């Protein structure tokens, strides 16, 4: 790497230091146990924080944030195997954390796999637990587990009223445009996640006429970037979807499905995956399959919903540090005006 570039990155990391969040801080937070992601909109740019750590102090509304929201994912209500025999309890823990936040989030986004087997009783249990959240507005997208038996009819009836197709929709909140996409329906043999032609057309039309300065937040269950094709951790036609957001200055993509934190920045698009509230899954390729990962009971809480930190600063030129798959080291891939930075696999 040219020295000049390295110096620039050092300088930019120093800038982060000045903001009170250094790389050591990032990594420390990544190993910290939480149960969801807190997103704070600051100057139109989403900033994520670990649940109870620092929130309300240096990342809360008190410091220039316009609003915040929480992402939870992969509750798998109904799962009862050794990796976590009580997924309802751990979801409850996540809700308790949300309720304990000093600044109430405007809404919650659940990025799918609400249930394990799409059973009415599982959805009932989820609903009952979510009723306990002091934040009442909850946005959903389905995971593949929510559309197992009836092509998602029950999911749509319960969580997708007023949505299009298999459950996609968009909404605006305080100047930010949110789009919930469905990439778990009508999956094809040998493929990964899929959005499909109809949804892509709708998505393109949905973005038309919006100002390029509108911050965009996309959320869907399966990652909209290819993490590990062998395990189907990606979306076959995500590239086309992402081509529609290229002109926007700030795009944040929130996904679940892989039950672990991963991040990457590509130009102005920042990708994040969230932890599960139910059970962890192995790092890509580091187990025979993507099945539930069993951890000692006393460690379970630490690997569920562990939040990552992605500190995004508006209007600054920041180093883009992209962590390649299966490599904990980082490599700089350039600079971008905003947002920033730092991707790493957990552990």
């Amino acid at each position, binding site marked *: 790497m040219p020295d000049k570039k390295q110096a620039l990155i050092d300088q930019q990391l120093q800038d982060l230091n000045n903001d009170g969040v250094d790389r050591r801080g990032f990594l420390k937070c990544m190993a910290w146990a939480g149960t969801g992601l807190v997103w704070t909109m600051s100057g139109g740019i989403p900033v994520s924080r670990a649940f109870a750590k620092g929130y309300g102090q240096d990342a809360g509304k008190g410091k220039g944030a316009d609003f915040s929201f929480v992402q939870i994912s992969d509750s798998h209500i109904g*799962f009862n*195997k050794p*990796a976590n025999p009580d997924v309802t309890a751990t979801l409850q823990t996540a809700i308790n954390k949300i309720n304990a936040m000093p600044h109430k989030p405007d809404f919650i986004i659940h990025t799918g796999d609400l249930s*394990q*087997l*799409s059973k009415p009783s599982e959805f009932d249990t989820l609903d009952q637990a979510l009723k306990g959240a002091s934040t009442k507005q909850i946005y959903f997208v389905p995971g*593949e*587990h929510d559309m*197992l*038996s009836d092509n998602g009819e029950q999911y749509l009836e319960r969580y997708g009223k007023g949505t299009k197709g298999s459950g996609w929709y968009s909404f605006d909140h305080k100047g930010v445009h949110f789009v919930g996409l469905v990439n778990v329906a009508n*999956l*094809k*043999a*040998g*493929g*990964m996640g899929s959005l499909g032609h109809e949804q892509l057309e709708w998505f393109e039309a949905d973005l038309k006429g919006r100002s390029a300065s509108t911050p965009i937040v996309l959320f869907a269950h399966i990652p909209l970037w290819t993490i590990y*094709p*062998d*395990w*189907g951790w990606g979306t076959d036609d995500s590239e086309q979807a992402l081509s529609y957001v290229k002109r926007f200055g700030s795009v944040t993509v929130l996904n679940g499905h892989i039950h672990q934190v991963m991040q990457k920045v590509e130009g102005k698009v920042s990708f994040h995956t969230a932890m599960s509230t139910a059970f962890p899954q192995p790092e890509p390729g580091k187990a*025979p*399959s*993507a*099945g*539930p990962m069993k951890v000692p009971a006393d460690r379970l809480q630490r690997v569920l919903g562990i939040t990552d930190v992605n500190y995004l600063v508006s209007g600054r030129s920041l180093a883009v540090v992209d962590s390649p798959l299966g490599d904990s080291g980082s490599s700089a891939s350039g600079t971008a005006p905003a947002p920033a930075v730092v991707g790493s696999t957990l552990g």
Partner: protein
Amino acid sequence: MTRRNVWVTGLAMPVMIALLMMAGSTSVAAADQAAAANAEVKIDNFSFGPQTVTVPVGATVTWINNDDIPHTVVSTDGLFKSKVRDTDETFSYTFTKAGTYPYFCSVHPKMTGKVVVQ
């Protein structure tokens, strides 16, 4: 005339019984053969094993899910489609025509397999 008829009948009865017995034993043998040709496909670690299974016409293939995660068995051509199969649950399908039948898990479509019926 009457006697002759009786005789014919008398002769015919054991023959018919023998024929019936042969037919019976033939069908038993066929059933044995089919049973031996039936196949089981195990779902382990998000994969079908064996990935390709070859069976004679009339054989029944049974899939069993050994994973902690639910799967399905869905014919790519739409011929058969299991309900969602949770841990230890099975799905069976009897193949009545020769051919190659690709299938996959509609929940995890990277999981694919093939039944060859000869």
